[in-house]
């Protein structure tokens, strides 16, 4: 009996970690540790609830990792359709918050369907291309583009430009990895450039203001420009080695807006300096690199496309968030992956990581 217990525990532990990819888990663990550290400076009272969010996200990651890629592929269409249904529901009956219709009240909980689309989109398109294993024709790309533009359009109408662009990017990555010819990609790029002035006229005033604010933040020092001015001051004044943990004046005197969510990078950069920034980027780089390895080794087209696009979504979050906080990109509501406070994005990201693990695991099964 005495010996049996550890054995049972060991077997249970084995089963628990068997679908997990340890390098990926290790990198995520380091990022989460770092997140707790930064939260301890930016908003210590939120550590408890963020630890709960992390635990929940890890459990969900484990569940997703335990599913086979076939299983993931089989839910692609239903998840997409439910997502579209919910988006239409939002457009018709959504709760209005901060001038936009983004939330749907289901009675027992409030959901933000655009968040579901961030996962559903690459899942569906990866499934779609996988079905067409023969040589891909141009018409396939057209259908894919259509499948992509429906939710993007719905999200843009909410209006939520930031999320719409992220979902667009997520779908685009799949199409890109599926092998859309460079000529067409170049054509699309040129069209986008030409369409920019037209798009400008369709933007809401507040969206234009954000772009104008980026060009000259000092114009609106009390309003939107305040965010960018204060976060660049925070980053710049951090210098090479930073002011030290909990020593950042910008963060501690609350000059940095939303310093525990979207602008948490400014807190980190002020207190840990350039050195800290390079460490953080290295961690993200390792995570992205591991994602590429998983994509490269994936045995099915579905796995490759999904892994490749999830990895690139991760990169997009990192780049858009840090670019925004350091004044390179306009202010859009994108959190810093795994570090910003908030349960929703954490869960979404860990579902993605769980999928990467699931894809990697299936490769090993095939090899065996």
């Amino acid at each position, binding site marked *: 009996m005495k010996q049996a217990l550890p054995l049972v525990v060991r077997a249970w532990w084995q089963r628990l970690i068997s679908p997990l990819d340890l390098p990926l888990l290790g990198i995520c663990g380091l990022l989460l540790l770092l997140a707790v550290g930064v939260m301890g400076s930016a908003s210590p009272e939120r550590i408890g609830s963020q630890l709960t969010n992390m635990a929940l996200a890890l459990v969900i990651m484990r569940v997703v990792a335990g599913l086979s890629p*076939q299983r993931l592929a089989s839910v692609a269409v239903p998840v997409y359709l439910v997502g579209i249904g919910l988006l239409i529901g939002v457009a018709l009956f959504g709760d209005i918050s*901060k001038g936009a219709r983004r939330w749907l009240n289901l009675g027992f909980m409030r959901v933000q369907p655009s968040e579901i689309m961030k996962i559903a989109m690459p899942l569906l398109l990866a499934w779609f291309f996988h079905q067409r294993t023969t040589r891909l024709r141009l018409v396939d790309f057209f259908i894919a583009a259509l499948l992509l533009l429906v939710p993007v359009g719905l999200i843009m109408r909410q209006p939520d430009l930031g999320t719409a662009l992220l979902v667009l990017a997520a779908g685009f990555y799949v199409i890109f*990895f599926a092998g859309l010819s460079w000529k067409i990609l170049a054509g699309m790029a040129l069209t986008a450039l030409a369409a920019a002035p037209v798009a400008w006229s369709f933007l809401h005033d507040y969206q234009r203001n954000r772009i104008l604010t980026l060009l000259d933040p000092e114009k609106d020092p*009390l309003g939107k420009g305040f965010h960018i001015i204060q976060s660049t001051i925070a980053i*710049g*004044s951090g210098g090479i080695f930073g002011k030290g943990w909990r020593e950042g004046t910008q963060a501690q005197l609350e000059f940095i807006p939303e310093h525990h969510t979207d602008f948490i990078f400014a807190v980190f950069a002020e207190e840990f300096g350039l050195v800290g920034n390079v460490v953080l980027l290295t961690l993200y780089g390792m995570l992205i690199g591991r994602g590429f390895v998983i994509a490269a080794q994936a045995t099915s*087209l579905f796995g*490759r496309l999904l892994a490749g696009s999830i990895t*690139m979504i991760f990169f997009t979050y990192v*780049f858009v968030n840090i670019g925004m906080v350091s004044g390179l990109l306009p202010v859009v509501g994108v959190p810093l992956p795994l570090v910003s406070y908030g349960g929703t994005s954490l869960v979404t990201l860990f579902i993605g990581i769980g999928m990467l693990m699931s894809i990697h695991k299936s490769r090993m099964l095939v090899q065996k």
Partner: protein
Amino acid sequence: MKIIHDDNALGKFHSRLAVAGGFVLLCFVLLVLRFAWLQIIQYGYYQTRAEDNRISLVPITPSRGLIVDRNNVQLANNYSAYTLEITPAQIDHLERTIDDLATVIDIQPKDRKRFKKLLEESKNFESLPIRSRLTDEEVAKFVAQRYRFPGVDVKARLFRHYPKGAFASSTLGYIGRITDRDLDKIEAIDQEANYRGTDHFGKTGLEQHYEFELHGTTGFEQVEVDAGGRAVRTLARTAPVPGNNLTLTLDAELQSIAEQAFGDRKGALVAIEPSTGGVLALVSMPNYDPNLFVDGIDTQSWKDLNESPDKPMVNRALNGAYPPGSTFKPFMALAALTYGKRTAQQTIFDPGFYTFGSHTFRDDKKGGHGTVDMYKSIVESCDTYYYMLANDLGIDNIARFMAKFGFGSVTGIDIDGESKGILPSTDWKKKRFKNPAQQKWYAGETISIGIGQGYNAYTPIQLAQAVATLANNGVMFRPHLVKFITDSRTGEHKLIESQPVKKIDLNPEHIEVIKQAMIGVNKEGTGARAFAGAEYVSAGKTGTAQVFSLKGADYKHHSIKQELRDHALFIAFAPANAPKIALAVLVENGGFGAQAAAPIARQIFDYYLLGKRPKAPAAVDEAAVERDDE
């Protein structure tokens, strides 16, 4: 899952991955370059700016716009009062400081609770009120002890004040502390910067609807602060711009006469100038004192107001939906003329009841009204005439006609949250009920619609708009309370449109028939006692809305519990040939329209047209015709 061993495809995928990897690397290099720029090359500059962040921007709240009536009587203004404020950033032991303060100045547990709440929501450097409205004595007491309390100060702040107290309360509305929901509205129009430093927000009535006009533009002061956040000196100042003033179409004197006319009865009154749509009086009784809300209402008063069975917080004029009773009849008659179902001369015989299928609809005059033409049907309020008419018109014709007068849709008055009421039709019933058996409209249901009962339910403002439109020969205006907005910067007047919304296509001869009959009501009919001896010609129609079905028994006013008594209604306009005022009065559980509602209208007209002030609230005329209409 199919496994592809197509080396070509795999190779292509790998090359795409390589491109993506290159892109990621490029972007990361870009970020690192940006960091190097900010953190190495520009380090000195940002270092200084972080130090300079000791210069803080302190918002200066603008004073809120005034609300005055059409004769410039102030209905909402601001007064300056002293508040005791604490700057938490300058204090080490907050609790202890407050305890010490309490020995000098009276601080209640409720003040502490409010302060704690403010503290949680506040930004740094802000000073927060622990007590407001200090007396001069309290100010003197504190000033003498000020040296003991660094970080605590007395400040002069502006407070909203409603000089007339419990007056037009649901019309003016009130302001209260900003909540998250208010913040959403502020963010929706990108006004966060302008609301820095603002504590209050319009919650109901005009204060809510015109919040962004009344608020003004926040100014700011650049203040140099030392390391602890203490202000050392002011460097620059941008003055705030006060909010815009509202001048109402409302006549405060008329409003207060109307409110007093109700005495302690519940109800609503809406008086409109037919030629503009300007609202002269908008009454919902009982009133409450909006001053209670300005500084955060205490729990007990809030409970009292909210849980009172009289529901003072409900704006009955806009949100109470009542069956119109017989005030519906003039509009029914007009529909009959317009759709050619009756002529003015055509008569019916009223035996005192109307039978439809197996059901008998009673007229409340025992033995009936005898031979009745259109004039008599309105003057005596004959039910049988309208039972028959409703059946001849059919529900959808009624609905189509009444919709033109605005029944069943919001009037668009400049107060938020108006109710639509219910304009019954076959379509409405289909949408209203889920059960297919209930969705069907039965012809029998149309009969009582004819006398303004049944599913019918309209707000007093809809009734007033309809009677004003009738008085104005079919030219309809959107009722509005604000006459013009005065721009505080330029002094210019922004007029609120008083262009007609539309002209209802009606035959002038038909309108004249109805108007003559309504004049008859006040001369020789159900309204005659209330308007006896009036020095002007007025037109009206009484109405009584059933709250409680008698199931064939006789209605005895005094033997029925008050909350089940009928609602008294009256619609009227005067002078009849060139109407200057049109109104709808509703007295909840007041009994007959002729008894309870018409005398109120008389007082309003006497004051508005002749300047006569009533000596006492409009008395209930117990001797007025017995149950004139159902």
